[in-house]
């Protein structure tokens, strides 16, 4: 597998309110092979979205190397980011036009992904007329429509009900198996990660702490006990990592409360 995403000693600092510089990504190394499905699991605020912004080429201010090859990069943001003055279909057309997808393919692409996400009847609805979860699904349709070779997904299913999320996860795997996109999928949900990924990276405090391969054969079934088993291990590793995070002295004395909050927050969002 030749690498599609290569990141070496990536560092990213943000200025906080006092103008002091704060490291959000610390010496990240990451290699993602062509057609790989990678999940990044980490607590809120550990720098996942920041990393995806760099990979998507939106954020160009960083140290180290980050390169993405392998075709168009699709990015499903943490929020839907739909254009409110366009209908659902208008939003898809905007993406298709911008990416210069030949018009002859539009209707096929739109119908397929709208059907997959259960939005076929909502083409003429404006974003404010559909629910938050539907908007998130529409954003997924928009990202898939332009057929990216590399797809970055930032907690795409966190706002969906579990039944819908399950169905779309399976559909996503089907699409991935057909098209062999390279996918980097960020989530808080360990079970989801184990179901989807070839490989899971546990991230905390701006660095990857653990790497886990998912040895479960595909096609996977959502109720496979092996996934459950593995997700427990992942959660344990994940918990250890966050636990470890509270120790380093780099964090100012006033912050333990905050970290504690993050910890609980993260645990609450593990969905298990």
């Amino acid at each position, binding site marked *: 597998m030749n690498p599609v995403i290569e990141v070496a000693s990536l560092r990213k600092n943000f200025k906080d309110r006092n103008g002091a510089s704060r490291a959000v990504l610390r010496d990240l190394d990451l290699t993602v092979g062509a057609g790989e499905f990678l999940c990044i699991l980490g607590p809120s605020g550990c720098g996942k979205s920041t990393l995806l912004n760099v990979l*998507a*080429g*939106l954020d160009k201010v960083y140290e180290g190397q980050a390169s993405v090859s392998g075709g*168009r*990069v*699709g*990015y499903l*943001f943490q*929020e839907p*980011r739909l*254009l*409110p*003055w*366009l*209908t659902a279909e208008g939003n898809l057309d*905007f*993406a298709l*036009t*911008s*990416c*210069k997808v030949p018009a002859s393919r539009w209707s096929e692409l739109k119908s397929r992904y709208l059907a997959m996400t259960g939005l076929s009847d909502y083409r003429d609805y*404006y974003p*404010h*007329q559909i629910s938050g979860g539907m908007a998130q699904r529409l954003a997924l349709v*928009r990202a898939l429509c*332009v057929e990216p070779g590399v797809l970055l997904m930032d907690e795409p299913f966190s706002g969906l009900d579990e039944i819908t999320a399950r169905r779309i996860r399976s559909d996503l795997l089907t699409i991935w198996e057909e098209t062999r996109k390279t996918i980097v999928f960020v989530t808080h949900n360990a079970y989801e990660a184990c179901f989807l990924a070839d490989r899971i990276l546990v991230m905390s405090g701006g660095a990857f702490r653990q790497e886990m391969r998912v040895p479960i054969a595909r096609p996977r079934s959502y109720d496979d006990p092996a996934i459950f088993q593995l997700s427990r291990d992942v959660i344990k590793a994940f918990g250890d990592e966050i636990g470890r995070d509270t120790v380093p002295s780099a964090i100012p004395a006033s912050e333990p409360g905050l970290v504690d909050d993050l910890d609980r927050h993260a645990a609450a969002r593990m969905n298990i």
Partner: protein
Amino acid sequence: MLKVLSMVAAVIVWGLVSLTLPPEIFPGPIETARTLWGEIAKGDLWTDLAMTMLRVVAGLLLALILGVPVGVLMGLNRRAEAVLDVWVMIGLTVPSLCYAIMAFMWFGLNEGAAIIAIAITAAPSITINIWEGVKNVDTRLVAMARVFEATRPAIVRRVLMPQIFPYVMASARFGLGIIWKITVLVELIGRPNGVGFKLFYWYQLADMKQVLAWTLLFTIIMLLIELCILKPIERRVFAWRPQVAV
């Protein structure tokens, strides 16, 4: 519907109040309408009205040409914002009469000076609106468009303009309100025709009926512009917006 009712009520109140006062001081709606009709029948009212409209439209266009770029610049550039915001405030504070007098003294008693005075008066409030609009642009949508490989012109046209347009509409409307008033004032001090000139003329002759007739005419025209031009444009352009329950 409520609007119509409230207007009818206002006319009735006007009529009732006018009964208590002599007609030279406060004529009622019927007399005023009759006077207005007389003026319309005479026909030279249209020249005055046309001149006023011309100044209003030209003034508004010039105000937008001056105000929008400055507003955009201030919204985009911190330094420009820091330098210009005092000037916008000053521009807003100076009474419109001062602009009118200065314009007439510098450029002479001509149409150009009138339009410049009108535009300068309205430009600062337009600038403020646009400045606000540009600052409120959702950059996350711009990032989204960039991910989808939209070109710069496409981003400007399809992502930025729709976000700024409501503010342009609001500022045009707001500007228009200011411009009506300043136009009448400018005509009063420096033009030989127009609604403001006529109002002043009848004021000097102390003819209250005519003064009210012209005021009425002016108000009706303003309402027509609001209801027949601005509202429909807004309704079309903002069809996508959620209906706010009132």
